[in-house]
């Protein structure tokens, strides 16, 4: 068990090491210098270039996800209303607008905000419920 988990971990480590090595071949769109500048600004200190590449790739992935979400919104906007036959249907030009972008970004933030609210509400709710039960128990005891 231990050995297998140890081997599993070893595999994972090697996979990670391989992955990091493969990162060096891939050139992310966000340049290394920019990433290093903002990382050093926020306190991140690491001389290893692979980590900066990892951060750059992660940021690129994030932005591309947001952009693809915005693209979806844009396409949905174009597909839904087919008002005029006069203008060219399905206007081919896909333009990134503030509206689509805000919708896409809202989805990113959505869960975090609502989850915190949910968490706090449930916490206090449970707390109050317990208190009430305690009080009820006391009352019951006294009555009895």
């Amino acid at each position, binding site marked *: 068990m231990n050995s297998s988990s140890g081997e599993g971990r070893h595999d994972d480590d090697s996979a990670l090491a391989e*992955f990091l090595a493969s990162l060096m071949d891939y050139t992310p769109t*966000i340049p290394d210098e*920019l990433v290093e500048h903002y990382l050093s600004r926020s306190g991140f*200190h690491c001389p290893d270039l692979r980590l900066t590449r990892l951060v750059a790739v992660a*940021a690129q992935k994030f*932005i591309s996800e947001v952009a693809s979400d915005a693209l979806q919104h844009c396409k949905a906007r174009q597909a839904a209303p087919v008002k005029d036959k006069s203008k060219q249907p399905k206007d081919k030009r896909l333009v*990134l607008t503030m509206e689509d972008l805000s919708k896409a970004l809202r989805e990113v933030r959505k*869960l975090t905000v609502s989850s915190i609210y949910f968490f706090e509400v449930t916490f206090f709710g449970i707390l109050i419920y317990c208190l009430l039960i305690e009080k009820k128990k006391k009352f019951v005891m006294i009555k009895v």
Partner: protein
Amino acid sequence: MSDGGRESGTDNQTSSKKSKVSGGDEFGRAIAKIAVTQICGSTGFHSSHPSALDALADVAIRYISDLGKAANFYANLSGRTSSNVFDVIQGLEDLGLSQGFSGASDIHRCLASSGVVREIGQFVNTAEEVPFAWPVPRFPIARIPKQTSSFAQIGEAPAGNHIPNWLPAFPDPHTYIHTPVWNERATDLRTDKIEQARQRRKAERSLLSLQQRLACNATAEFMPAIDGDAGKGKEIVTNNPFLAPPLPYGEKEVSEIVMPKVDADEKKLSVLETFAPAIEAAKNGSLTSLISEERVLPSERPMVHFKFGIHSKSIVAPLSSKAQNAKTDSWFLRDDEKDDKKRRAEMILKEAMENPQELAQL
């Protein structure tokens, strides 16, 4: 897409010129905007609004900063100052919680096989490689501070034995010692004033000599130039008292030309007397004779005999018994032949005689 990239690239340039709000971080923001534009282009957009690109670039920068902060936090939590790959993975997990990743609910998960890493791996394998368009220099450029040289480097002996020569040298004494600077121009001021007065006197002298020369134009006499007596010509006075240089009070014996209270006819006539040669000159038609007569302010008054018409209010009686009757007669006889100008001059004189008080103001 090259078209999309180029188009949004032009949008980039116009917007980057306008926005100057960031204040110091403009270069980083510009680079981020270009990178974000390239990503959008590769995603499938043809073009974009510049404001949307700005916002997305801001989001990217914030994401990188947050990731760095989280990684640093985890490193500090483990008692390290420099982060390693696990700190970064944990940071990624923190940031990616909202979107979710596989294996997030796994309690005993290993970081190395984290879902986040796998997703990134998939992204790397599937997404096409779009390197950044332009070479980016290393920034920000750290300015090398100018080091103050030591005593030994300058070659200066430090003041005092207690100061070793490898310490930085003292600044120049003129930077901290205030030596008063005397204004050398005190004497120059005085000489300047003297020079000014001298030049003024010279100018006055030359002016006087000019006047004199003009006065003596007709006469054959050659009057010498006046020697400087504070530049005021005492001896020569032009015919016209108004053109003469001002004399200090009491210096020149001046007859009282006009008095408000007319006691005698003598005083009344003074203006006429003064202008008599002028009138004569006008009559004759030559102006030079006007000032050709060298006159001291009159102590003797030429006889003037005026005869005016009935409407005239002033009658002037002749002063002295000097035989100038002929002159005045001729003056009067030629009344008809005179020009209008001369007639007008006479009228003016007439009016001047009417009001002696006005004369006083003259």
